[in-house]
């Protein structure tokens, strides 16, 4: 459909205080299918102060189809993720074998009717281990993220509310920590804490992942810390944590949501990498990462299922989390391109 865009100049006179006359120009767009005479007519119908200065032909886009509720939303990712999470939570109902049982007669069996995903080099059933171990992996991801996000919120808000010199000091510290490769710090910390268990590894991963969020929180807090409602609350005797929780957090929570979700992802990756390298959880503590730590032997015997299956579950979860996170990141490049 072709419409003509009449570009008109509107001169309105506006009196300012000093009797100066300001002229204002504007573009008025008329969407019409009328041609020639009709157009002139419609222009004349308008106020005499309008003057046609040009005509631009524009093609109008087809009237936008109504978007279905699922368009632009990561439905597939959400469904897949909830299937995985439900499977892991309800693993007792799904598991066909005891995941910790070492079946010495059936070790390194390829996937078959009895062992759906095969068994590993120690004779454990991989299908059962996936669900059982997923629970631990997801727990570590979420626990580490809770720890790092709350540390980030407290640290960032404290830095945002602090006087300038303390703020500068705290931010320099954060930047230094941020520029150190996280995994090396985790390895070092884990070495200090000694033998790893689920709680200690969540702690170590969480404590090394708060810097990025803290920087965002700090800059958000600096923008709103002098708002009336914060001052009012402070005048009424609200403590730091009260103000933080009731007034500051609701304002910046949306801007750190994306980073928090991504933190779950990197925590799960960190756990599996550590366990794989033999620094994280021991083999008898079943997670997706520690299942992969058996892969050295699996490579020798060319048993692909030991490597591929836990890895695919791991990656499916990570991809789902990422696409949910991307959905949460609102307002990135939403405007129309000029290109």
């Amino acid at each position, binding site marked *: 459909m072709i419409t003509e865009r009449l570009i008109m100049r509107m001169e309105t006179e506006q009196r300012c205080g000093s009797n100066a006359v300001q002229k204002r120009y504007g573009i008025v767009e008329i969407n019409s299918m009328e041609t020639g005479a009709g157009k002139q007519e419609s222009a004349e119908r308008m106020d005499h102060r309008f003057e046609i200065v040009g005509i631009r032909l524009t093609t109008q886009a087809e009237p936008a189809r109504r978007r279905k509720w699922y368009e632009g939303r990561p439905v597939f990712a959400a469904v897949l993720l909830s299937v995985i999470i439900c499977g892991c939570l309800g693993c007792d109902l799904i598991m066909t074998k005891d995941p910790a049982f070492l079946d010495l007669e059936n070790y390194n069996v390829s996937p078959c009717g009895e062992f759906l995903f095969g068994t590993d080099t120690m004779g454990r059933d991989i299908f059962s281990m996936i669900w059982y171990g997923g629970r631990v992996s997801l727990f570590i991801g979420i626990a580490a993220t809770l720890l790092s996000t709350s540390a980030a919120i407290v640290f960032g808000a404290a830095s945002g509310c602090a006087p300038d010199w303390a703020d500068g000091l705290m931010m320099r510290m954060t*930047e230094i920590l941020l*520029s150190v490769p996280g995994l090396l710090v985790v390895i070092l910390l884990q070495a200090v804490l000694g033998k790893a268990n689920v709680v200690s590894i969540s702690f170590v991963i969480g404590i090394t992942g708060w810097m990025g969020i803290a920087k965002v929180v700090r800059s958000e807090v600096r923008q709103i810390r002098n708002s009336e409602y914060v001052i009012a609350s402070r005048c009424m005797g609200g403590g730091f944590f009260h103000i933080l929780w009731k007034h500051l957090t609701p304002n910046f929570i949306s801007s750190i949501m994306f980073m928090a979700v991504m933190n779950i992802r990197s925590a799960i990756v960190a756990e599996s*990498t550590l366990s794989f390298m033999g620094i994280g959880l021991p083999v008898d503590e079943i997670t997706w990462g520690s299942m992969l730590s058996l892969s050295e032997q699996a490579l020798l015997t060319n048993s692909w299922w030991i*490597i591929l299956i836990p890895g695919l579950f791991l990656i499916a979860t990570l991809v789902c989390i990422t696409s949910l996170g991307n959905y949460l990141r609102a307002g990135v490049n939403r405007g129309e391109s000029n290109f």
Partner: protein
Amino acid sequence: MREEHGFGSDMHNNLLYGGRHVCFGALTDGLLRKTAYYGKKLLIFLGSIFLLSIVVFYISRLAPGDPLISYYGERAERMGPEEREWAKDRLGLKDSVSVQYVRWLTNALQGDFGISYKYKTDVMEVIGGRIGNTLLLGGTGFVLIFGLALLLGVLCAWHEGRLADRVICQVGTVTSCIPEFWLSLVLILIFAVNLKWLPSSGAYTAGRAEDPGDRILHLILPMTVVVTGHLWYYAYMIRNRILEELRADYVLLAKAKGMKRRSVMFRHCLRNVLPSYFSIMAISVPHIMGGTYIVETVFSFPGLGTLSYESARYKDYNLLMVLCMLSGAVVILCSLAAQTVNERVDPRMAGAGRTVLR
């Protein structure tokens, strides 16, 4: 622009009104400011290195583990208590940690970093033999990552919202989710175990250390992992940066002037994006380095990564210290370089306290 102009007219005035002396003063002032600027950076660098050395020294000594095992091997386990005392005394491990640190520091300042317990030679020699491999893997990986990321980012931005962009974005998101160690395992499984095309570990076949073709064959798999592990993160960043630029008003103006899409993209948008790209490159060095370390461990590639892993695991104190200081120095240098690039290339950044990575 305006400021530059102002400065110019100042100079002009000084010259006009016999302000030669004043002008000279301004020049030395500028020089002083520059010296102070770089001096401050140098101070920050040295201070951070010093702090790092203390932290690493204490943590490594206090961490559980037996350094005697790395020196004496299995013999350490059969030692009697007296023999252990003697061995500890010989390695200088009997004193308190602070005394050990001061001794280490005075030696280190004279250029003596001690011997590696495991290799029984000078630490610098051990590192010198390995550093080439890491530089080759990391350096080539770095160039490939940033070259390809720029290419992919521009490609996606060019075709924004169309099929090519959507496909690349989807594939990229998936690849960025694959943990590096798993990708290495799968590549080994496919190309080394089943197809037998490429070697699975090491930097060269025994006895063929000088053969460049053999070295390249050994590099292919680790390099693929290093590149795919980081590529999408940076490509996506470039893509979003360019898309942000494409929404600016000057693009509309350039289009209205009748400029070609190509010149709008490369002469305007890309030019605005590049300064931040350079500082991202500087910041990314430690991250790519961390990634290389993991890949080296999986492929048992004889580089600094495997070395630091071993030395941390088996308490090879002297080696661990030097490796940590080396990594730390690179990290701090890079972040200082990124700051300097930001402030030099884009004057708006100076003092604004803005960072590039969001």
